[in-house]
């Protein structure tokens, strides 16, 4: 099964759910499903800022597994980080997200 994750809520999601569950499982190739994309809203976009330690691991595993990463454009502009993301990580809104996923559609989109 193919899944895409949408990180929509804040609090503990990136540091805990992504950083301590999903990411280690992807790194160890035992996540259980194929992750085809991740989209980040609001403060969750800080994980995509160049130099973020969780982001560095995420980008590495995304490149290895062909996972599409994208930040919400409005969220990134509001935080003035749109031009500070890891090289090659795009920003966009729903049309961009669906367009980016259209070549490798997930079976499920999971909002966290």
């Amino acid at each position: 099964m193919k899944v895409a994750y949408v990180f929509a809520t804040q609090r503990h999601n990136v540091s805990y759910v992504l950083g301590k569950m999903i990411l280690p499982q992807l790194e160890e190739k035992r996540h259980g499903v194929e992750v085809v994309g991740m989209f980040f809203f609001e403060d969750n976009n800080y994980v995509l800022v160049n130099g973020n330690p969780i982001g560095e691991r995420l980008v590495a595993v995304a490149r290895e597994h062909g996972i599409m990463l994208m930040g919400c454009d409005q969220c990134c502009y509001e935080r003035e980080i749109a031009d500070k993301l890891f090289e090659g990580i795009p920003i966009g809104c729903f049309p961009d997200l669906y367009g980016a996923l259209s070549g490798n559609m997930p079976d499920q989109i999971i909002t966290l």
Partner: protein
Amino acid sequence: MAENRGCCCDTESRRARVDDCFERGRRRQRNDPPRRGGRPIRARDGTGAIFDIDAVDGRIAGVRFRADSCVTLIAYCERLAEISSGLSVGEGHRIDSETLIASLDGVPRAKRPRAALAVAAWNAALSRIPDGKEAE
């Protein structure tokens, strides 16, 4: 910050944030939409924009636009409306993509082609103003 209206290419004193321009652009579109018809200028991905420009005595006196709901495009269109205020029509024609890109901080490289789309729509509207006078 006071706008410098002396020269259309004086971008240093005119830099702005995308988020602020986007919000002002959304308000402009909602409160003062284009009055004249016409077809939007579109990029290959279908994203489009159209300007409606008033000129009085050869000077840009009012700018309205409608742009598809792309944050970057709306911000660039709004920035064009702001930096062109009070310029002559000829000076308006001299605003190019590079000028527009330089006037707006924080846009990632992959999104900067939106500036060319905004400028193309801008020039299309300016070209409808004959001899620097407002088209009837």
